[in-house]
């Protein structure tokens, strides 16, 4: 399937004039078994696709909540091969959500972009997002993502020049990742007039489906983003909600099941923001 699985979802949303929810999950936060349960729960609760974060030791684009999640994941022993295996298990169990692997550049480049991309695609990943790889460096991975038929997704922000937005959109498949405002992940925000104007500017420059992220905490933000986007991306808020559910569980409970329920409930709440 690969890139086409993601493109099918975002194209359908665009044609229907709808917005879906794209949750971000740090792979291996609480162990890979927990992530697997969370993925199935998110699918059951109606996610449109999922961003699966491969943990990195030095996540400079992330705020404290996602940094902490990455370190918890690394401390629990998560490896690249472990995440590949997780994706394979999700697919074997019938998991059908498009999966975008979200990784900093080094874990991909140090393995060799070709090998990393082919391992991810063979396991059932559909796309690749690299937060520290701007379009200026896309040549590092272009051949590898194409050979593996992964959808490469690039980022744009309110400070990105028009010509670079066009370029990022041309290079992206599935959707263009629009960071609604300047800042690091997990900063509480509202869309505001500037945000709306920025989204309108992006929309005027490309027909590529748009995924809008950074700062979505609840249904109100989803509702603000939905008219402008095909995907509302939620990261830190979900990761922290699930983590708190794990911390709040009692010893006699199945923590993975608790976390899966928490993820599903959070997604269901967010989807309230999609209702007209």
């Amino acid at each position, binding site marked *: 399937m690969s890139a086409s699985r993601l493109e099918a979802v975002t194209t359908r949303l665009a044609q229907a004039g709808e917005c879906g929810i794209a949750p971000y999950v740090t792979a291996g936060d609480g162990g890979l078994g927990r992530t697997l349960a969370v993925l199935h729960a998110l699918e059951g609760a109606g996610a449109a696709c999922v961003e699966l974060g491969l943990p990195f030791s030095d996540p400079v684009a992330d705020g404290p909540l996602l940094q902490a999640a990455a370190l918890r994941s690394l401390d629990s022993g998560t490896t690249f091969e472990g995440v590949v295996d997780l994706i394979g298990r999700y697919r074997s169990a019938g998991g059908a959500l498009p999966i975008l692997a979200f990784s900093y*550049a080094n874990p991909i*480049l*140090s*393995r060799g972009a070709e090998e990393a991309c082919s391992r991810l695609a063979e396991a059932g990943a559909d796309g690749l997002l690299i937060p520290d790889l701007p379009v*200026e460096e896309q040549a590092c991975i272009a051949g590898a993502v194409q050979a593996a038929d992964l959808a490469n997704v*690039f980022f744009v*922000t309110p400070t*990105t020049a028009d010509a670079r937005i066009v370029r990022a959109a041309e290079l992206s498949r599935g959707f263009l990742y629009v960071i609604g405002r300047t800042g690091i992940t997990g900063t509480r925000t509202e869309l505001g007039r500037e945000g709306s104007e920025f989204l309108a500017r992006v929309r005027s420059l490309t027909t590529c489906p748009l995924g809008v992220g950074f700062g979505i905490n609840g249904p109100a933000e989803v509702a603000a983003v939905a008219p402008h986007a095909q995907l509302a991306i939620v990261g830190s808020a979900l990761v922290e909600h699930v983590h708190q559910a794990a911390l709040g569980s009692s010893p006699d409970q199945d923590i993975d099941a608790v976390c899966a329920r928490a993820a599903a409930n959070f997604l269901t709440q967010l989807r309230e923001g999609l209702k007209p």
Partner: protein
Amino acid sequence: MSHERFERPTRFAAGEESFGGVFAPETLMDNLFALEAAWIAAGEDESFGAELTRLLETYAGRPTPTYHARRLSEAWGVDLWLKREDLLHTGAHKLNNTLGQCLLACSMGKKRILAETGAGQHGVASATAAALLGLECVVYMGALDAARQAPNVDRMRLLGAEVCIVEHGQRTLKDAINEALRAWVTDPEAHYVLGSALGPHPFPSIVAGYQEIIGHEARAQFLSAHGSLPDLAVACVGGGSNAIGLFRGFVDDASVELVGVEAGGVGSEAGQHAARFRGGRPGVLHGCLSYLLQDEDGQVQATRSISAGLDYPSVGPEHAALRAAGRARYESATDEEALAGFKDLAAREGILAALESSHALGWVRREREALAGRSVLVNLSGRGDKDMATILEVLAPDQDGEGS
């Protein structure tokens, strides 16, 4: 105004290989474009250059001397010369860069600078330049480094800087840079004064450009005093700004061997040193592709060195390119060898060197038989006052150490 492209090469090439680049989050890209534009404009502006020269000469104390260390030469059997960056205001070469970058910040209309620091020397130099030029200053410093370089923390605060202690990760330079980069993303009205010749383009070129005055001065001074060029130019390499500053003065002189000395720490196993060229392989950290200490999964490895300024898992990309081109070689000195270099210099020349610079001395000392009779120019990049607590702890464990 948003920018569309970089005007200068973003990589340092060596044949088929190249290092550097711009591996930065999109949220930082416009800051980097704007910085490059300001840097190019400043380079073409005679009044900017004149002001920087005025500050370097009348405030910072340039030129620093190149000193013939005769007693230590005699002891080691090596013709040893020292470029005295330890005599620069604030006690290290770092001020060359912070004066340049703070003037750049002013030219961009910025009112505030952010900086990271390992040994504290760059933090002090940033706080100093900020005070001089009327800028606010926030310095990020790992908690481990703040503990072992306490005098520099006090110095920064007395100079009016806010010092943010970074409590996560390894709590050293790497984590301070992570935090400073994040702060810059959320505070684009500030200029980030990166302290070493690393990070995303244009930083490696900017920092090297402000530090190359070391090598140009040293070359002229050495020629004038000695009548010929040195056989070797040697410098310690953390991020590598003092080394690239020295090397750039000699890179076109094929007869001068360029040697960078990394931190060998306490052993050759992963986590016991910061010798990137021996234990690392190409990788991306903090925006640039260079040699990186990393595990097989691409996770950045812990480093260890007695010297906070060398305790960093990556190295400036221009060094990676010089090495790939065969123009420079990179060696390492252990904690113990650095301390031996420190002691000999103190006893024979009356100079307390920074632990960073002591690695360059430690390597020369270890290799003194192979270097016998050759002329060796070492960049004494900083003074050792900041390291007294660490050094006394190691050198005099049997004494009370309480002092009076």
